[in-house]
């Protein structure tokens, strides 16, 4: 069932796309909401996942709907399936 849902998501481009540029920028496309955005942590709700961007001096820009660009000194990007977070 889960693989079926994954296939449909892939077919209709509903997956989240995360692009990391060096340690300066992270672009998360196809996301739903911004949960938190402080200087060290940005939490983004993407399709089925929560993307956490850790770093220093982080700022968030949402130039177009459904996408978020995080700028600053990126230290790590973690992706956690929603509902499985410990």
């Amino acid at each position, binding site marked *: 069932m889960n693989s079926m849902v994954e296939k449909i998501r892939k077919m209709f481009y509903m997956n989240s796309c995360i692009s990391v540029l060096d340690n300066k920028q992270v672009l998360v496309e196809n996301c*739903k*909401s*911004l*949960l*938190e*955005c*402080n*200087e060290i942590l940005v939490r983004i709700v993407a399709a089925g996942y929560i993307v956490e961007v850790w770093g220093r001096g*982080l*700022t*968030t*820009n*949402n*130039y*177009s*709907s459904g996408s978020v660009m995080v700028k600053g000194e990126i230290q790590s990007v973690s992706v956690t399936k929603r509902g499985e977070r410990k």
Partner: protein
Amino acid sequence: MSVFGKIRFVIKGDNISRLLKLIFDENITCAGLSENSGTLTGQCSLKDSYPLERACIDLDLEYEFQEDKSLVSAVRWLWGRKGILVGALVGTLLVTFLSNTVLKINVIGGDEKLAEDIVDFLETKGVTYGSFMPQLDFFDLEISMKQELDQVAWVGMYDTGGTLNVDVVPATETPNVSQHRLPSDLVAARDGQIVRAEVYGGQLAVPVGSGVHKGQLLVSGEVKLSEDKTVFRRSVGKIYAEYTDKAVFECPFVSERKIVDEQEAFKQKYLSFFSLDIPLFTSSPSDELYQTDEHISKLSFLGMKLPVGIKTVNCTPYEFRPVRYTRKQATAEVYKLKSNYETNLLSDCEIKDSEEHLTVDETGVKLTVSYTVVSDIALEKEILLK
């Protein structure tokens, strides 16, 4: 500086997370979002600041918006200072108007008299101070100036800003040449008796002492040198004849006379702006008759006279009033008329004798004078040859 405006905001409160959700849900485009100890800072466009402000109010958040300099904010700033806008607009219009208007006519070449003649000529063609420069047909004006002004040999016209330049090459002065070179006769201008003749050219056709009629040949230009040789010359001379001239002078006892009231004279001032005269007075004059005398003092800038100035009109009221003369005054008046007539019209004549006849009736005094005068009656008449 952005075009449409940018807002820097600082939002404080407990519901920052909900605000972030709202920003995302309502597609409020933000940049540089950063939360620190319950304070959200960032930037957004001026357009997006309104829903953001509404969201802050809904979520009971403290907010502080600071607008960056932008074209929109500059326009808004200017809109609050309409004087600057109006001044700039008026200035632009004025510069555009003045750079397309004849402010000065500069005649290059020739003397002052020629310059005045050219300015007068241009005025007759409708080109004066204040004329709209693009409407002037320089080619047409140049041709008509060359045709109608004898003292102009060549002319070129061009404009530089508000100055109309007329570049002229004056015609070389030709020596005075007598126009009377054709053979001519001298004929009598009126009836009379010849008393004296001075003939410098031609042949006297009537003897001194004889009477002549108007149009009769006095001196002939056809001179017979021999039986088979005749030459034609210009007749020159003075033929004096005695004749009578009758003049009647009348002065009615009651007549209208122009009375000028100098004491009631007043001045009216106008602001002269190009060809426009704007009155600088509010009271309108009565329906009286005035004799007027104008004087314009124009403003000058760096030695150049501007087409703006103050026009002063001196108005002196006058009226025609019936004047009643006594018989003595009327008689004096007719003799005054007689004296004027002799001074002005018979000054070239020698008055040999005059016979006066004064009649007085109920309407006025009438003086009839018969002059016996001697004057030159010769009139030149060209001989038409085949």
